[in-house]
């Protein structure tokens, strides 16, 4: 199992270092306000990890991951909103017991699709199932008809636009442009308290690393190789007896499921959900989180989400103008000069070190100064080969 998850020592060390950084160092040195922000960025990490599988491995670029982030987020937000709208706290409304925005829009009854979200188990199920199923159906319909590459990107982008405009336009049902706000408690537990924020941060982290491990497993077993094979030689895979459409649709669904979990965790940690988080612009930004981190590296994707968002917060406070130039420049630079992103840069750095280490161990071996096991370990590091080169990393 361990060998399946981590191909070599480098991957294992990167994974461990990330856990130590996010689960130990940051919580110790950061005030809760900052840590909560990191937690928010990490919810985008879910989307980026999914994109590594979908785009990096399988060569399918979705510009509509915000849709699934939003579906998961709205499911959670609807539950929290209903909890916040009990008849007592909404007694001043003309119809008590329904969310405030419905009351403002002269709704007198809870719409039918809201009713099941009174149940927490249903909500948890919906957070996972809704994005997954929607993605599978869309993916299957398109991949079955051999839609891929830029066509898939455009259609998913259009879906992101449709969903964000649709939510925006139906204020009474969805809260419209403002989104669903004032979310305070989860099953009576105040999610805005300091202790709750700590707990949610760690829950978020555990779920995220769960997703990281799932995608590492998928990448390193046969299905991962099949996905890369589909990316590089679709026809051959089909004539090896694989159902390419289903393989892709399942990958799309897994990526969507991750995004949905991320959306739900976003709502829990930030306390609201709105269409501005799921439209065209946020969806394509999610792709850049993945590209900056390295489209082939799941750990890279997590860092990509943190770094880009950190940059966004820092710069857009100081000088929003500069941020847009920087963001635009990042898109261009990553694509043209660093197609493997930060993970690629790190690999280069470490493989250089590894080569040096290899020489060093060779030298000391001759002097007979190191024990055999040490030398062996050094050898392992130096033979660390980079991930397969993305010859056609962008599909058709």
């Amino acid at each position: 199992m361990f060998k399946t998850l981590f191909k070599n020592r480098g991957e294992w060390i990167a994974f461990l270092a990330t856990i130590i950084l996010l689960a130990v160092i940051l919580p110790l040195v950061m005030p809760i306000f900052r840590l909560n922000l990191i937690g928010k960025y990490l919810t985008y990490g879910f989307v980026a990890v999914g994109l590594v599988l979908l785009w990096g491995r399988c060569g399918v670029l979705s510009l509509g991951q915000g849709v699934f982030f939003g579906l998961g987020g709205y499911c959670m937000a609807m539950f929290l909103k209903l909890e916040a709208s009990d008849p007592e706290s909404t007694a001043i409304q003309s119809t008590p017991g329904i969310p405030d925005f419905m009351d403002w829009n002269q709704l007198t009854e809870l719409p039918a699709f809201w009713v099941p979200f009174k149940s927490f188990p249903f909500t948890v199920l919906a957070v996972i199932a809704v994005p997954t199923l929607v993605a599978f159906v869309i993916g299957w319909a398109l991949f079955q008809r051999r839609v891929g590459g830029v066509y898939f990107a455009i259609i998913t982008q259009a879906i992101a636009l449709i969903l964000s405009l649709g939510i925006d336009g139906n204020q009474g049902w969805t809260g419209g442009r403002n989104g669903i706000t004032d979310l305070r408690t989860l099953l009576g537990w105040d999610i805005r308290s300091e202790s709750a924020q700590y707990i949610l941060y760690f829950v978020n982290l555990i779920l995220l690393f769960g997703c990281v491990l799932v995608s590492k497993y998928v990448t390193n077993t046969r299905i991962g190789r099949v996905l890369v094979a589909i990316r590089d030689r679709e026809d051959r895979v089909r004539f090896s007896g694989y159902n390419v459409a289903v393989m892709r649709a399942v990958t799309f669904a897994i990526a969507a499921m991750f995004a949905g979990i991320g959306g739900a965790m976003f709502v829990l940690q930030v306390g609201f959900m709105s269409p501005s988080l799921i439209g065209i612009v946020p969806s394509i930004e999610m792709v850049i989180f993945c590209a900056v981190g390295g489209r082939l590296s799941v750990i890279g994707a997590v860092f990509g989400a943190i770094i880009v968002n950190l940059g966004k917060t820092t710069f857009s406070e100081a000088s929003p103008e500069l941020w847009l130039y920087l963001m635009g420049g990042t898109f261009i630079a990553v694509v043209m000069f660093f197609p493997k992103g930060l993970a690629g840069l790190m690999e280069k750095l470490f493989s250089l070190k590894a080569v040096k280490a290899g020489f060093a161990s060779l030298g000391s071996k001759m002097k007979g100064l190191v024990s055999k096991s040490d030398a062996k370990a050094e050898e392992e590091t130096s033979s660390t080969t980079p991930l397969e080169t993305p010859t056609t990393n962008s599909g058709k």
Partner: protein
Amino acid sequence: MEYSWEDLRAIFVMQGFAGISLFSVLLLMGLGLALIFGQMGVINMAHGEFMALGAYTVYFCSELTQSLAPSFGPYYFVIAIGLAFLGSALLGALVEWAMIRHLYHRPLDTLLATWGLSLILQQTYRSIFGAREVTPELPGWLMGSFSVSDTIDIPINGVFVLGLAIAVTCGVLLFMFRTPFGLRLRATVQNRKMSGAVGINTEKVDRLAFAIGCGIAGIAGAAFTTIGSTGPDSGSRYIVDAFLVVVFGGAASLFGSVVSAFGIAQAQSILEFFLEGTMGKVATLFFIVVVLMFRPQGLFPGKVRSN
């Protein structure tokens, strides 16, 4: 709500004409894209910003005329259209040279890189022209409308823009099918290696095609100024619609783009009257996406994609 037969007729005609202005802009956007995407397979996410550049060019000319030669007011617009084309085409050629040509074999990466470019261009417009939307001083002859009946008014600017769109479309078709360059372009699209082997400078062909596509977006921007005011993100608001026009029409078919631009614009415009706010647009886009799921090759599939 109840509408009488008369009302409905008037609504359809009026919204139909409003739709025609939208049609003209979408068609011009779509034509440029069809040239770049349909023929060269490049996704230019900054296409909307080339359109905005055209619109800003017209605005700039208008301001210049106002302050330097007010008497030239009635005529500047025609020249501004030409400048809008040139400006966008020049920028397009520059972008092709600096960026696109390195990415021809990586279409998805082109998409991301041009998105980055669009962010940079938007911010540049914001820095130069401000975040507020601007409107050029349109010449008098473009204003007003003629009344066909008591309930039906037809705006002149709509008719002008339609004429412009038709003229550009005919121009592009003539250019593609009746000039030596058009022949070279079509040859390059069909077989790049072979075209290079028979002595066509494919690099030059690519650059020119990209530049012309962007130039047409510039004209779209000029047309746009007659129906709306221009802001830094005006272009990006049309980009998804424009891509859907091309994909829905069938990527390699210029004729398909015309038909689908018309259908999409009319549907949006008429539905907007009956549905609230943006829901007309949502309904139209939703319909298109569903159709594309079942018929991904679009309305008029070309032979280029059959492979």
